[in-house]
């Protein structure tokens, strides 16, 4: 197995994947707890529209996707808080809109179709050291923000009204969580792909939640499971020759199925 470490692209892939696997459960737990994990899917689709813009105007797709996805996250949260449209409907609208815009823009751009496909399904093996530095820095900042607001986020996950009574600025914290989610989604695009990111977010957390006794335990176990899925998935992809993003998600699913069998 160790011979894959002789390939620097695999070392970078393992590093980038592990950073994402470490970060996503920390943020994702608070989304799943509020039955809001679909926001990741919507944002991932919306970020593809940003990728389309980047490809069209010749800007690095990730940098074009970042502001567009953050704007999408803020809009989704705004609609949810206004309650004119249900949270579920606003997610569905943003998801369809994002993908439709992405497909149209990608077809108009002169870039090759494989550029767009790499954001759809991920292309972890093309990760550069610059990508890793950017990802690590953003992940670190996101984790610090979440840890700093851990008690407030936990209280909101338990009961939003109760959190308000305790004096937390619930709306502001919800916007903050949506923004961080958007940033992490965009940076994970190239690695696991827009279509698979929500699977990596949801499956390890749901698996961990089935066998944990507390919220903190769930986060820690979900991190371990996500890192495991990334490492096993990448190794399998390398030796069997299949797409890394898909392999990572399939391993996550296998672990989930095993957890179902262990604890019925």
């Amino acid at each position: 197995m160790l011979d894959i470490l002789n390939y620097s692209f695999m070392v970078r892939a393992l590093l980038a994947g592990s950073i994402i696997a470490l970060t996503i459960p920390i943020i994702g737990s608070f989304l799943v707890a509020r039955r809001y994990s679909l926001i990741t899917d919507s944002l991932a689709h919306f970020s593809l529209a940003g990728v389309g813009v980047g490809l069209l105007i010749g800007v690095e797709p990730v940098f074009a996707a970042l502001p567009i996805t953050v704007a999408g996250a803020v809009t989704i949260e705004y609609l949810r808080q206004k309650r004119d449209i249900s949270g579920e409907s606003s997610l569905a609208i943003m998801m369809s809109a994002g993908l439709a815009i992405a497909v149209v823009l990608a077809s108009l751009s002169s870039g090759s179709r494989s550029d767009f496909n790499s954001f759809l399904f991920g292309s972890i093996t093309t990760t550069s050291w610059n990508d890793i530095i950017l990802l690590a820095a953003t992940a670190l900042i996101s984790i610090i923000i979440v840890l700093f607001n851990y008690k407030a986020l936990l209280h909101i996950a338990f009961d939003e009204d109760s959190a308000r009574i305790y004096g937390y600025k619930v709306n502001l914290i919800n916007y903050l969580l949506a923004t961080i989610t958007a940033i992490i989604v965009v940076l994970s695009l190239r690695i696991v792909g827009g279509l698979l990111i929500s699977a990596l977010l949801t499956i390890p957390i749901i698996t961990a939640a089935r066998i944990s006794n507390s919220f903190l335990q769930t986060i820690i176990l979900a991190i371990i499971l996500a890192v495991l899925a990334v490492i096993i998935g990448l190794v399998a992809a390398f030796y069997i020759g299949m797409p890394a993003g898909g392999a990572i998600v399939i391993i996550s699913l296998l672990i989930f199925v095993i957890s179902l069998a262990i604890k019925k």
Partner: protein
Amino acid sequence: MSKYNKETSKTSKQLLNANNNLLKINNLNVTIGGNIILRNISFEVKKGEFIGLIGPNGAGKSTLLKTILGLIPTATDTVENNIKNNIGYVPQKGSTKNQQIPMSVAEIIGLATNDKAKAQSALNDVDATNLKNRKFNELSGGQQQRVLIAKSLASDASLLILDEPTTGIDEKSQDIFFDILKSLTKRGIAIIIVSHDVDTVLNLVTRVIHLNQKILYDGPPSEFRVAKHLSSYTGKQHILLQHHHMENA
């Protein structure tokens, strides 16, 4: 807020302290979407009072609770809250159920305090020490209510608001629950309990507030029973209760 207003507010809070008052509602009116939900609501809550808030569906009970809790904004000085951040709220069963991710009882009490001794003592007060490491969503309805009260106690609540706390809880658990509530009022904690189960409330509380947009009755349960009993013969419940309220005011 002007300096004058601040001073006025301070004076009224000092008065609240002097009278053992935790909360004072002054002529509260709430209109939502053009519909009047609450009209001319005024009452005070003193230390150790056990109040039953009753009324039909749509009477404005939840709106009143949300106003007291600060979840619905009101005109300045309508709600004089002497115990800011010290109101404990136990929501209707269901609002905290079916969690996707488990939370332990210790984690839930930890939301209210970082002090482990205080958390332990709060659990002890509601006879729930043995539940500390259990998952909240695997507890029975009665156990969940006790944990939520412990959460309030851990944050030094001097007023507890319980919204339909006995829904779906068996009689034996209800009795344990009510004994705990009574012991809390003896310690000076005020309780407002909202319930559809009027008979249970009347046997439990020391004061009844009958609400239907406005306060129809505010007084001891014994007199409310008489008023209710008489009304079944005269059919003049509304007038009688209003009259009683005016006498009380």
